[in-house]
């Protein structure tokens, strides 16, 4: 469990209208999940020919983690392409698993300018468990989005974030690059568990919009317990850095394999 230098009230309580909107988003997404979940996986598997080589092992580990505790779970993954959130979710669970355990399907914080610009993309984002965020937007707007995200975690939903704050421009996890907002969310939820996921396609040499068609992915996961004795921003930043450092460890193992 991460230690907390100081806890913020992030996600502790939203305005009633806001909570109702998120509950409605969950309900609608769940009702329509028998259509969109298999469709999303079909596009990845047969449309792009992608395959996660060790999916069975990753899915078993994820199932075990979920069954061990009902504490909030935040997945922190490396980030190389625009569809990483789909790939990570697919690596951790089959469509059938997510249809049976809809709350195991992670929520995302997609960048508004990448994913929520047209009516169709906004509808897709709405259905696919996403809360769009405008990075570099007004601080209060970003904080409000993190508040919604933390609220979802507190009520048993799983979250997925990319603690590097964007796709790695070097193609490798950069321990110097960490988004403090991730640490802020973790710090705000004392019981939050953090699962690091490293996923990479064999042909993925650098960052890109999409993985190469037909690419084969391998993943690795590890729990991390970030701690900080500091407070405020420094605690958030330290927690984020520990998470990114764990991803860098997983990356080293990936290439040493």
């Amino acid at each position, binding site marked *: 469990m991460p230690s907390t230098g100081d806890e*913020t009230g992030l996600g502790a309580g939203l305005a009633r209208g806001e909570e109702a909107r998120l509950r409605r988003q969950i309900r609608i997404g769940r009702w329509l999940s028998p259509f969109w979940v298999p469709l999303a996986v079909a596009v990845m598997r047969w449309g792009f020919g992608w395959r996660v080589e060790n999916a069975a092992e990753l899915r078993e580990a994820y199932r075990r983690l979920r069954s061990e505790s009902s504490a909030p779970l935040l997945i922190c993954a490396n980030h190389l392409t625009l569809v990483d959130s789909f790939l990570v979710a697919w690596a951790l669970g089959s469509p059938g698993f997510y249809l049976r355990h809809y709350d195991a399907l992670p929520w995302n914080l997609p960048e508004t300018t990448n994913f929520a610009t047209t009516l169709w993309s906004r509808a897709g984002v709405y259905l696919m468990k996403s809360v769009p965020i405008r990075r*570099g937007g007004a*601080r*209060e707007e970003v904080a409000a989005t993190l508040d919604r995200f933390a609220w979802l975690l507190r009520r048993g939903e799983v979250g997925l974030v990319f603690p590097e704050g964007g796709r790695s421009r070097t193609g490798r996890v950069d321990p110097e*690059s960490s988004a403090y907002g991730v640490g802020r969310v973790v710090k705000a939820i004392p019981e939050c568990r953090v699962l690091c996921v490293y996923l990479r396609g064999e042909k993925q040499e650098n960052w890109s919009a999409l993985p190469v068609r037909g690419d084969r992915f391998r993943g690795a996961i590890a729990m991390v317990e970030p701690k900080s004795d500091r407070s405020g*921003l420094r605690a958030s930043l330290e927690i984020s850095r520990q998470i990114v450092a764990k991803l860098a460890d997983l990356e080293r193992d990936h290439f040493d394999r």
Partner: protein
Amino acid sequence: MTEQEVFQQVVKILTPYVKNQEALDQVAMGTNILEDLKVNSARLVDVVLAFEDEFDIEIADEDVDKVNAVGDAVTLILQKVG
């Protein structure tokens, strides 16, 4: 410290992170740090940490949310400095 002194220190701290030199030349209390000065949002944390070091104060996460304009930073620092 006077408001003017804090303002000058804040601008000095911001300067290395500013991408819009023109806006920096005309910087005022109402200048938006991200939108006008084009400071990278990811670097805003470094800026705030520099404020903490320079003025020997501690700024909470929620306080950072209120910092949009240079004047917001000045007001916040003056409150913390007392």
